[in-house]
């Protein structure tokens, strides 16, 4: 049976919907937070053969429920791993082409899928200095990307204040022309919908989550968003997904 949409948090919805986007046998480079949790969830559910990479240098671990690492650089990330390498080596796997999916969260995104996690406002005199790119820039430059983030007007803007992690830049061929000839944004998973990109690298809606209206999506987006009339809908989270997720994060470190 499926359960009511008010019986899970939007973070739980984000985790479950993005976990579904991962396929068994893939190599996924997962950032800290929702991506780490969602990749681990996929591993517990439909993708037991999923190989997770963490920026700290971990290849193929099994995260222990209730012991979620606060960063991707701690020993908790390495539990039952197949191999540990240096940070540079694990990032080079992206460049060498061994990574099927790059998976990260986002603070601010624009219509071409560019991500900003560096500055809010003017760069020289910002209203907020954010932590920065970490591996985000490298992951987004070199791999097929899934981004999980809540959909809000202030986060989904026409143009980001600063391109920390490249999407399709100014659209069209601008990404390729800049030298980024591989990878690119594939899916943006939000608490409202699954978003994709058209041939010009412009964001569009692929599917709406249960009970979400097209208006809700538009209201929470800072730019015009293409939505097909008969847009498809995602299946609601199942009890199995929710219980598996809550076992992984009993302290609600990431799914609060």
């Amino acid at each position, binding site marked *: 049976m499926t359960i009511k949409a008010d019986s899970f948090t939007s973070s739980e919805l984000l985790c479950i919907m993005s976990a579904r986007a991962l396929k068994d046998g893939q190599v996924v480079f997962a950032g800290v937070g929702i991506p780490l949790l969602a990749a681990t969830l996929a591993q517990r559910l439909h993708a037991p053969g999923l190989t997770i990479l963490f920026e700290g240098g971990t290849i193929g671990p099994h995260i222990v429920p209730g012991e979620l690492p606060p960063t991707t650089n701690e020993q908790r990330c390495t539990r039952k791993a197949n191999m540990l390498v*240096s940070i540079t080596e694990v990032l080079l796997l992206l460049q060498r082409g061994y990574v099927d999916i790059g998976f990260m969260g986002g603070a601010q995104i624009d219509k071409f899928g560019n991500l900003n996690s560096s500055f809010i406002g003017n760069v020289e005199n910002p209203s907020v200095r954010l932590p920065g790119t970490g591996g985000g820039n490298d992951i987004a430059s070199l791999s097929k990307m899934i981004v999980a983030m809540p959909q809000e007007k202030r986060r989904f803007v026409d143009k980001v204040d600063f391109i*920390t992690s490249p999407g399709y830049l100014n659209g069209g061929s601008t990404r390729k022309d800049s030298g980024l000839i591989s990878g690119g944004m594939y899916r943006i998973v939000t608490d409202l919908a699954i978003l994709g990109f058209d041939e010009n690298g412009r964001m569009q809606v692929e599917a709406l989550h249960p009970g979400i209206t097209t208006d809700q999506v538009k209201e929470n987006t800072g730019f015009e968003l293409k939505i097909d009339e008969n847009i498809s809908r995602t299946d609601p989270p199942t009890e199995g997904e929710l219980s598996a997720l809550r076992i992984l994060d009993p302290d609600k470190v990431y799914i609060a």
Partner: protein
Amino acid sequence: MVLDYLELRRRTQDRDKSLREKVMNLEEAANLVSDGDHIALGGSTASRTSFALLWSLIRAKKKFLTFSRSIVSTEGDLIFASGIGKEIQTSWFSQGIVWGVSRVMRHFTENNLATYKEWSHMSMGLRYRAGAMGVPFMPMRSMMGSDVAGRLENLKEMICPFTGEKILLVPALNPDVALIHVQRCDSFGNAQLDGLTFMDIDMAMAANRVILTTERIISNDQIRRSPDLTKIPFFTVDGVVEVPYGCVPHECYGVYEPFFPHMDYYAELTRKDPMKGVKEYLDRFYYSPKNWNEYLALIGIDEIFGATQRGRSIYDD
């Protein structure tokens, strides 16, 4: 600024690379660092941070230091707040995602009181690697087209003469000093590292001086019995300091996990009034203790036992 090759060679040539005792205390180690040095910090975020040495640099009132690291956590707040350094080159800067954005980092950067130069994570690693290899740059394929690259003055693009592809060249980084904490090394500086090595190996090879803090000093005989476990060779090392719990409140792989309650306390302390909070923190934990053990005692035996129990558990699987 990339060191010209002859200058890099000269600095390396001038070093005493002989197999010799290098054991010293924290104060002596701090004297190996000069005002104005570029210091590379080993570890990443809340792991294997050479806190004991940073602690002694802050107590020694060093000045005009530039720091670089893979990812910077609370040590960055303390570098800025203590005044020992005004520039940090790294890829990410805050205590950790679960604690939100560092208010201290924000205070210094948003008010242009200090500089946080943002590089992509891989580009930081490749800069150390170029330095370690003795070449002036490394080629790479990320960062192009982003504003991260746009904001850095010291990058070059080239067309690959083999493939005609656009390639980004990042400049070599040869730090004056690298501060690295390890689980074990001998008195000459041959170091064994467990678990995640981060960028420490390239950093050690790239730096013109290396200071190791270590949980334990083991015999050279033990090193020579399994030379394939040595990760940093003695001739790159200038000082060895035995400091159990030298990364507190951060993690040392397989020995102790991060001191989470203390890190929560720090985050809370600096949330409302960052500058007042961080000053209070420095006074209490950096300036008042007589020695490192007194610093540990202030943090408390409950936290030490808790972090140690969690730390060792990695080997229980």
